[in-house]
């Protein structure tokens, strides 16, 4: 440590350094300094919320918001929705089984063979589309009524194809309906729903009766 305390070895260097010209600040040093301080002060006074609503800050934030909304809509438009309620959607009309240029023909088919299949096949005269259901007890009530324009047929077809009003359906030779290829919707009804349908049916009957008069 004594070696470091001995400055005499470097007297020449010390002298050279001490004789160096003193550097002075530029004449406008203080003016510039206070300008900078005042500038800092004015910037500091603006709070974060104030800055957020300055036009320069508002532009990028609004652009981002608009972009988010656009992306949201674009992704929702082009992605098919899968959450549809099938009960609220009308059945799809199949063009390949519907012939519109054919005349409406009422076909009466006698039931010769099987009593069991009587209620299975029915056709419409005025209603273009047909509702089929395995629930035969309800069907009997609904379809046997001539006022509704619905008749039940049970006879097997020679050509294995029925033309009933406007719908072509396929059936097996024994008279039972082959559901393949049909465009229908099968719904299992609750007791309450059945009662409601029955009420609706009665209302319709009444309406038709009134209209016939």
């Amino acid at each position: 440590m004594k070696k470091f305390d001995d400055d005499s070895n470097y007297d020449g260097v010390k002298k050279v350094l001490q004789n160096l010209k003193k550097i002075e600040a530029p004449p406008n040093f203080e003016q510039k300094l206070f300008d900078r301080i005042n500038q800092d002060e004015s910037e500091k006074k603006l709070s974060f919320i104030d800055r957020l609503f300055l036009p320069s800050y508002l532009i990028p934030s609004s652009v981002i918001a608009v972009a988010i909304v656009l992306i949201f809509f674009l992704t929702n438009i082009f992605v098919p929705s899968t959450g549809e309620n099938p009960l609220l959607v009308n059945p799809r009309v199949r063009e390949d089984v519907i012939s519109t240029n054919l005349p409406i023909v009422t076909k009466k088919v006698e039931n010769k063979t099987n009593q069991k299949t009587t209620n299975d096949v029915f056709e419409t005269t005025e209603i273009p589309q047909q509702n089929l259901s395995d629930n035969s007890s309800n069907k009997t009530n609904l379809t046997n009524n001539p006022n509704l324009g619905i008749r039940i047929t049970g006879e097997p077809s020679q050509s294995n194809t029925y033309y009933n009003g406007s719908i072509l359906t396929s059936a097996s030779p024994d008279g039972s309906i082959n559901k393949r290829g049909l465009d229908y919707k099968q719904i299992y009804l609750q007791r309450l729903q059945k009662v409601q349908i029955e009420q609706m049916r009665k209302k319709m009957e009444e309406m038709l009766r009134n209209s016939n008069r």
Partner: protein
Amino acid sequence: MTDKNFNDLTDEELIVEFQINNTIAAFEILVKRYKNPLMNYVFRFLGDYEACTDVVQETMIKVYRYKDSYQSIAKFSTWIYTIAGNLAKTELQRQKRRKMFSINAYGKDNDENYEIPDESFRPDSETDTGIINEIIQKAILKISPAYRQAVIFRDIQELSYEEIAEIMNITVGTVKSRINRGRSQLQKLLKHIYKD
């Protein structure tokens, strides 16, 4: 209190006055007292007058803004030199990075236009002795920053070992060691000057 009275106050009294009463006059006197010593120190450390002015201004702004962080147990000069020293080191690092970048850029494309520094206002090149000053300054810049800082504080700013130790946050022994190593390096670099 008038300006005349403020001039009679010590640095520590002035900064306390500025802290407590936010007296701008007290701060102005501190700026007047320290602008030249700081300019001298930072210029010798960086070797760039423009950068040195910026660093000293930044030091004063930090004093103004963070006046409350000064504690009366320390000397004001120690505090302000510590701030200036840290800012000068940061500027030195920035200059090194800039230099590296410009060298790389020059290597890639020699056709680019470069700004030629204005040498007309250089405080150490106004007279013949300015040439010697320039040589000395170049020699100072050649020694490592740690030794350079210690030598400048001791031989140019004439601070005590204890003050230097406090500013540089090292022991007095380390300060003496660094000063000696710095002087030794300078002696080798400036042999031909002080022999004349």
